[in-house]
């Protein structure tokens, strides 16, 4: 079916433009139009999944529109196995996000406009085959965050402590404007690095085009590959939440409104990892192989550091935020292994963790709305009054620690096997320790909030999710179960793409790494 990829990318954008024309007080119309935009994209991504020809593989449904043909910039869209899974993820998350924001009362028009423009950028990144337009979509996916967090976010009182407390007070650490500005500036510094490498690759290849296939075929000089990959890894890695450039992430996620956190932790951080793999590893392979040890090392630091920080948190949103940092470490670990299992695991973890973290933030949003608190020590026994939320939280928690029959297990298993098969087998051991640490903080958190004694007086009459609030929870929770029990639904697509690109990358060394 022609025009499918364009529809997926354009639908949220057109919905945003349509929203601009609707008066701000007609809230129902605004919500319905936003939902239509999200659902069209979701339907489109499901259709892409169904139409993708597994016998042929490779990039399919390719289209190309000239943008500035003189400079070699075209809007080229195509999708492979990785793209199929990530489009599906984004479709699910944005649908969940729009429904989770259904009851927003403060300026919903601008909120949905910015949210939809953001997700249009995300869809674009996953299917784009032209490096310039890839960068363009990548930037579109960053800037609306400033407005979304700064206007609709929530500020948190963070008690200043430590040697830098003067600076904390000066910059209003914990405030939503601080989080928004820090996020935007850090991510844009990352994209400045990506821009530099992009221009260097364009001029080095001398082909006069930004087509990623063409640029990928070119053999770049080793110094460019080496420096370029490092810059791409740091640049994209800032978005992926790589230590030590992850510091925007906890504040950003904690301050952001629900749908924005769902989208950001669920999808945008995957954009960063996707960029490292698609642009960094596939287009600068020798540089990537040279630095694979560093990528893996930082990945295990991510896993460990994220888990340890999550254990120390008492604010619910910060636990989830740090757990995202930790799980992105699993993604990057899989990528660093350069094995089929590792890469399959990395992309599967993007998918699984996306669903899981989307579910978590939707739940946290609900808990916050009902109890007006994110402070875990005050909570307890919520499972008595909100059993539905408690159940979905526990499903998410079990997926997070990698329990079989849930999607997280498949991802982590593949990554750890891949790590064991790689040149640095010790990564697998640290990864397993990380999984164990995850179990500690996530089970402890679930128990502290939902199970056990309580609830205390102020939380006696909390309600469970109602009506439209169930949509996001069922969509994502069911996704975790389905893709945990039948992973091949999406793993086959991912594997097809992985085997192809890895074979091309490794060339003669292919047989050895299978």
């Amino acid at each position, binding site marked *: 079916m022609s025009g499918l990829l364009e529809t997926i990318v354009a639908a949220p954008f057109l919905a945003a433009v349509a929203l*601009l024309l609707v008066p*701000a007080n007609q809230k129902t119309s605004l919500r319905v139009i936003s939902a239509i935009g999200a659902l069209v994209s979701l339907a489109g991504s499901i259709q892409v999944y169904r139409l993708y020809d597994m016998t042929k593989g490779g990039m399919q449904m390719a289209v190309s529109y*000239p*943008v*500035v*043909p*003189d*400079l070699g910039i075209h809007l080229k869209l195509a999708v492979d196995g990785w793209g199929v899974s990530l489009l599906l993820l984004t479709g699910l998350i944005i649908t969940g996000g729009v429904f989770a924001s259904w009851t927003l009362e403060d*300026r919903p*028009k*601008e909120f949905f406009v910015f949210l939809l423009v953001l997700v249009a950028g995300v869809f674009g990144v996953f299917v784009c085959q032209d490096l*310039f337009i890839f960068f*363009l*979509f990548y*930037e*579109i996916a960053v*800037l609306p965050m*400033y*407005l979304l967090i*700064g*206007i609709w976010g929530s500020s948190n009182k963070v008690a200043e402590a430590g040697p830098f407390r003067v600076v904390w007070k000066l910059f209003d650490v914990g405030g939503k*404007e601080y989080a928004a*500005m820090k996020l*935007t*500036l850090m991510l*844009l*510094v990352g994209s*400045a690095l990506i*821009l*530099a490498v992009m*221009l*260097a690759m*364009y*001029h080095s290849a001398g082909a006069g085009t930004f087509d990623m296939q063409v640029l990928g075929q070119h053999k770049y000089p080793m110094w460019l590959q080496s420096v370029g990959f490092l810059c791409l890894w740091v640049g994209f890695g800032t978005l992926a939440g790589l230590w030590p450039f992850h510091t925007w992430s906890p504040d950003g996620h904690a301050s952001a409104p629900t749908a924005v956190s769902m989208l950001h932790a669920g999808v945008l951080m995957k954009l960063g990892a996707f960029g490292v793999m698609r642009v960094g590893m596939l287009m600068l392979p020798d540089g990537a192989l040279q630095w694979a040890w560093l990528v893996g090392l930082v990945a295990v630091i991510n896993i460990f550091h994220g888990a340890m920080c999550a254990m120390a948190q008492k604010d619910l949103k910060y636990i989830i935020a740090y757990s995202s940092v930790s799980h992105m470490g699993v993604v990057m670990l899989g990528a660093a292994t350069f094995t089929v299992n590792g890469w399959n695991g990395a992309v599967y973890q993007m998918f699984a963790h996306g669903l899981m973290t989307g579910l978590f933030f939707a739940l946290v949003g609900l808990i916050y709305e009902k109890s007006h608190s994110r402070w875990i020590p005050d909570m307890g026994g919520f499972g008595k009054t909100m059993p539905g939320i408690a159940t979905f939280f526990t499903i998410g928690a079990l997926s997070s620690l990698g329990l079989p029959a849930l999607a997280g297990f498949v991802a982590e298993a593949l990554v750890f096997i891949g790590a064991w098969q790689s040149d640095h087998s010790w990564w697998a051991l640290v990864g397993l320790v990380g999984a164990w640490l995850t179990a500690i903080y996530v089970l402890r958190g679930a128990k502290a909030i939902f199970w056990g004694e309580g609830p205390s007086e102020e939380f006696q009459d909390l309600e469970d999710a109602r009506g439209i609030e169930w949509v996001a929870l069922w969509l994502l929770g069911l996704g975790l179960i389905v893709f945990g029990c039948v992973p091949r639904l999406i793993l086959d697509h991912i594997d097809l793409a992985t085997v192809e690109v890895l074979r091309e990358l490794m060339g003669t060394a292919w047989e050895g790494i299978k």
Partner: protein
Amino acid sequence: MSPSDFRVISLELIVGAGALLILLVDLFLPAAKKKLLGLLAALVLGIAFDVSCLADLSGTFRQGSYVGDDLALFLKQFFLATGFLAVLGGLSRCQERFNSRLGEYYALILASIAGMLLLAGCRDFLLLVVAFELMGVPLYALAAWTKQPETEDERPAESGFKLYVTGAISSAAALFAISLIIGSTGSTRIDALAQVPMTPLLGLGLAMLVGAMGFKIGAVPFHLWVPDTYQGTTTPFAAFLAIAPKAAGLAALIQVLIGGLGARGDSWQDIVLLLAAASLVVGNLMALVQNNTKRLLAFSGVGHMGVLLMGLAAVVAVDAWRGPQAEGLASLLFYLPAYLVSNLGLFLVAERLERNGGGPDLTAFKGLGRRSPWLAMASLLFLLSLAGIPFVVGFWAKLYVFLAAWGSGLAWLVILAAVMTVVGLFYYLRIVRAMYMDAPEDSSPLDPSPTLTAVVFVCLAATAGIGLYPGPLIELCRAVAQAFIS
């Protein structure tokens, strides 16, 4: 001198005649109807723009001291468009502030634009001087136009005086530099530069000339007049000043450096690189600490001038054997309209807020998201365009300059510019924050002002439209640049 020669300078003649016409009409117009003068000025500019599109203006005048080629046409249309939008945008404000002197105001603006048009096509140093003076002298008076004898407010006088003193110094320096150049080449023609070996005398002359132009375009370290002048003068005129004379100065630099010295880039590239880097750094860093809207825009303009100079420097490839690169010039030409629509739009929004009692500081933007969502959305797009964020035109303009500069081997400057762009984002986001995240200080709805709103809308349409579909304009700029360089 046959009638067909006049065809080449017809635009200048139209605009010049328009200036005289306004003075004439002003004599007979009653005070209440003075606003018509502004509309008349806009009409003259519009007619000139139409003529530029429809008539064939190519050819030479006076044995080639003035040439009407594609580049000249592009620049002339740019100046006319800037003048048209700035005059229309500022119509009501000017009428409010100085109704009795409206005739002279518009006449001087048209005279200045006529000078810019002349500058676009000149190929002779003496004509360059004349055009510069014709452009510059009216600006000195216009900057101080709001000075009333009764009031205590000295700022308009300060702004006009600073512009006058720096302008006079730069004109004197330019004249001296040109005398050195003419002495070295033995001819007043600009393209005589290509035939003469580079002597220290010629080098000194060129350096002084670039410095003198640097005053006009507001490049660092010649930028000190810029913030004070913008702050003291009326906002619509500041908008005009922020765009048109800078482009005119760049036009002169293009003629002299590329047209005259194109193949010998090593003689001037270093100076321009230095100015570009300094402007990028100083402009963006200084803008961080500004609280006055016009001063912030002034320094941001200095930063943008750094990017424009980067495009100019990109014409010379580091591997000198590659000859002049049209890509650099094309990126500069594309940046000009991008800068025009975003900057003018933002100045006009600031003007509207100032008029509604918001005051000259950034606090006037507070709560605009609630007071007027459309205006806030327009400002958001203008700010994103100035910052270089997709999907508005400023992104394409910046990326195109970066692409051209990297291709010419100026990777270090591109990285510096990219870092400074992120710095720039910080102060642009301050305005966004005030608009959307702060409560309005004054919740009254904004006064309607049809002409200003119309111009803001045109700027918005251009910012978003070219941002979504930049191909045709980029191709036009490339064609013009390639024609000029070969």
